[in-house]
Structures are given as C-alpha cells and as structure tokens.
C-alpha cells in the first residue's frame, strides 16, 4: 500500500491552486466551520430518520421523515467539498494518518449501509404511516447508520492526535508515518 499512498500524496499535492487558497489567513477555519455545520445537517436529518427506524417518534410517517434526507445529502456534499480542500492542501497529514484510514473505513461502511437500505428496505418501509411497525432489518440499518456516522465524527476529531511523524525503518502494510528522508 505504501507505493500507492506515496503516489496519492504526490498526485493530490499537485493541485496548487487549492493549497494556495487554503493557506490564506482565514480559509482553513472558515472551511472547518462549514465542515462542522455540514456534519450537523447530516447527523440531524439522517440521524432523525435512523431514530424513527429504531422505533422512536413512531407518530411520524416514514415518507414524511424521508423528506429530511435531501438536506442530509446537502450536508454530506458540503463536507465532501470542504474535506477535499483539506486533503488537497495537506495530503500527507491525512494519507498517512490512522484516524483518517478509520474515518474512510467508516464512511465506506455507512455508504454500504445506505445502499442496503435503498435496495432491500426502502420500498417496504416507505408506505409505513404514523404508529406503523417496522421490520427488524429497519432497526439493524438505523442502528448501524448511527454507529457509523458517530464513528466517522469521532475519527475526524481524532485526526489531530494521529498526525504522522517520520517513519522508523519498519513501516507496516498501510503506512501511518512519513516515509521521507
């Protein structure tokens, strides 16, 4: 994986326009602010929907709560954009960072969970009205979604504490240190 990671860092760092912009005085904290607000949009809307899948607030029809989802997708896109700006500016601080690896893992799992929801469950639960019971799979998917997104957030917040140092000569399969010098 080390070769691939090095190639990735080199490719990402070649986008000079982004890093020039991001290194201006206020760009980074402004993007972090948007990143945190995007996270709240995603967690508030998708998380609310997940709680309904788990059996809370049963008085709300599924189709009604599903109208929140586009706002969550909006928050997700905002974070994809701002997150990409961070990554393009300081690629080696993320590509060699264990917390970032885990964050990507949990984001992928959350994505798979969303796919399973729409492929296997959505058609069945969409007509469920106020007070309606949901199949057991709904609880599994709702609970998994909450767990994955909380994990994404925690890993994101822990990024700072896994900033990579220069490698000791023996890097593992997935590099979590700076292989330079």
């Amino acid at each position, binding site marked *: 994986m080390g070769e691939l990671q090095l190639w990735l860092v080199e490719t990402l760092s070649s986008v000079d326009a982004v890093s020039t912009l991001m290194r201006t005085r206020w760009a*980074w*904290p402004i993007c*972090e*602010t948007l990143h*945190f*607000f995007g*996270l*709240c*949009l995603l*967690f*508030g*809307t998708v*998380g*609310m929907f997940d*709680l309904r899948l788990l059996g*809370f*607030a*049963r*008085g*709300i*029809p599924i189709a*009604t*709560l599903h*109208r*929140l989802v586009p*706002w969550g997708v909006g928050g997700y896109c905002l974070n994809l954009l701002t997150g990409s700006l961070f990554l393009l500016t300081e690629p080696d601080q993320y590509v060699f960072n264990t917390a970032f690896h885990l964050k990507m893992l949990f984001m992928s799992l959350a994505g798979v969970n969303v796919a399973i929801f729409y492929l296997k469950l959505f058609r069945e639960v969409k007509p469920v009205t*106020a007070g309606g019971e949901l199949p057991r799979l709904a609880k599994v998917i709702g609970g998994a979604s909450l767990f994955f997104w*909380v994990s994404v*957030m*925690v890993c*994101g*917040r*822990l990024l*700072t*504490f896994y900033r990579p140092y220069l490698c000791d000569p023996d890097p593992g399969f997935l590099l979590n240190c700076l292989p330079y010098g």
Partner: protein
Amino acid sequence: MDPLFSWVESSAFSVWARESTSIFAFPTFLAGHALGMACVVGINVAVSLRLLGVTPGFPGTELKKVFPLFWVGVWLAVISGTILLIAYPTKALTNPFFYAKLVFVGLGVFQIRMIENRVLGNPDLDIPPNPKWVRLLAVSSLVCWFGVIATGRFLAYTYGRLLVSW
C-alpha cells in the same frame, strides 16, 4: 486575571487534562464536545426543518420525544467544554471569540426552549401554515448555532496566549 489562570493551570486536573498522552484524556474530551454539538445542532436542524414546512403534517409532540437527546447533547458539550476550559483557561478567556461563543450558546438554548414550550405543543402546528415568527425562530436558532460553531472553530486559530507562562 493571571493569578486565577495560573492557579487553574497548575492544578493537578488541569495538568492531567492538558498533558496526559492517554487517548482517554484530551482527545476524548474533544470528541465528546463534537458529539454533543452534533446532537444539539442536529436536533435543532430537524426541528427547524419541521417548522419551515419541509416535513409537514405530524404533531410537534412527536419531535418533543427526541428532546431528551438534545439535553444529553447539551450536557455532553457543557461538561467536555468545561474540562477543555480548565485545561486551557488563558487560551479561552483572553480571546473575545470565547465570549461571543457563550452569547450564541445562550441565544441558541433560549430559542429552542421557546420552540419546545410555545410551538411544538401546539396541535394546530402548520394548519394554517406556521406564522412568520415561528419560521423566523426556526431560522434564527440555526443562525445562532452556526455562530457557536464558527466562534468555536476560530478560537483554535485566533488565541493570543495559550498559557499564562507562555
């Protein structure tokens, strides 16, 4: 204020919160602070979208059922925030952004309390469409939380002094 700051900073708890290399010290408080924020602002997002008519046609009392989670988020953020403050009192209390953040927090909590008590219990919610002041409250509460997030983030980039001794 320096004597007070240095008294706090030299306390065993402050030193531990600041200097412990354990993942269960500073990293955990930061993660807890972020999770608290996500619950607080997230629930306000869901409530505001209801009041703005994105999710019409169900009683507001259903949203009141998730409010315990809002208060869990508030306490999580307050407790972790207090610990972070004890770890770095000079850093926060000498920065005007910190006081702006407290003002935004106060306004945000005040507005969601008003929504909880005066709006969500109303059986006529959105039939007829929500009055203008309710929509205004839905937007302005989110603006305040955005202010909390922005001032909180800027705190990390604008402090003049980190510790008394620095």
